[in-house]
C-alpha cells in the first residue's frame, strides 16, 4: 500500500516538473516562463520529497525532508523575484 502511494506521488511530481519544462519552452515572455517554472516545479519537488520520505519512513529522512520542503518554499519566491528584477533593470537601460 505504501509503495503504491509512493509510486503515485512520484508520477505526479514528475508530471508537474515535465509540465513546467514544457511551459518554459512554449511560453512567449520571461514573466510567463517564470510563472510556469516557479510554482509547478516547487509543487513537483514537494510531491517527490514526500514520496521519498514515505518510502524510507525513518525519523532522519522525515526531518530532512521537512527541512528541505520549508527551505524550498522559502527561497523559490526570492530567487524568482531576483530574476525578475534583473530583467527589469536590463530593460530600463
Amino acid at each position, binding site marked *: 500500500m505504501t509503495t503504491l502511494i509512493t*509510486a503515485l506521488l512520484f508520477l505526479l511530481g*514528475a*508530471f508537474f516538473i*515535465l509540465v513546467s519544462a514544457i511551459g518554459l519552452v512554449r511560453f512567449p515572455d520571461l514573466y510567463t516562463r517564470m510563472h510556469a*517554472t516557479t510554482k509547478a516545479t516547487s509543487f513537483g519537488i514537494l510531491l517527490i520529497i514526500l514520496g*521519498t520520505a514515505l*518510502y524510507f519512513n*525513518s525519523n532522519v*529522512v522525515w526531518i*530532512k525532508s521537512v527541512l528541505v520542503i520549508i527551505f524550498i518554499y522559502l527561497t523559490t519566491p526570492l530567487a524568482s523575484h531576483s530574476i525578475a528584477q534583473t530583467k527589469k533593470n536590463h530593460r530600463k537601460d
Partner: protein
Amino acid sequence: MESTISTIALYLIFAMLLLAFVLAFIRMLKGPDISDRIAAMDLIASVTMAFILSYSVLVEKAIYFDIVIVISLISFISTVAVSTYLKQKK
C-alpha cells in the same frame, strides 16, 4: 537491485524527468536574454534533485538525501549571486 516499487513506474519517471531536462537545456541554449538562461538553470537544478531522489528509491539507499539538501542550498545561492551581479553590472 530489485526494487519494491514496480520498475516500470520508475523508468517512466526517469523518462519524464529526462524529457524535462532536455527541454530546459534547449531553453538555456537559445534563451533570448540572460534572465531566461538563469530561470532555465534553476529548473535544471530542480530536475537534478528529482533525479537523485528517484535514484535513491531505485537503489534503496537513504543517504542520497544529503545530496538534495546541498543542491537546494547551492541552487538558491548561485541564482541570487548571478542575479545580483547582473543587477550591479550596468
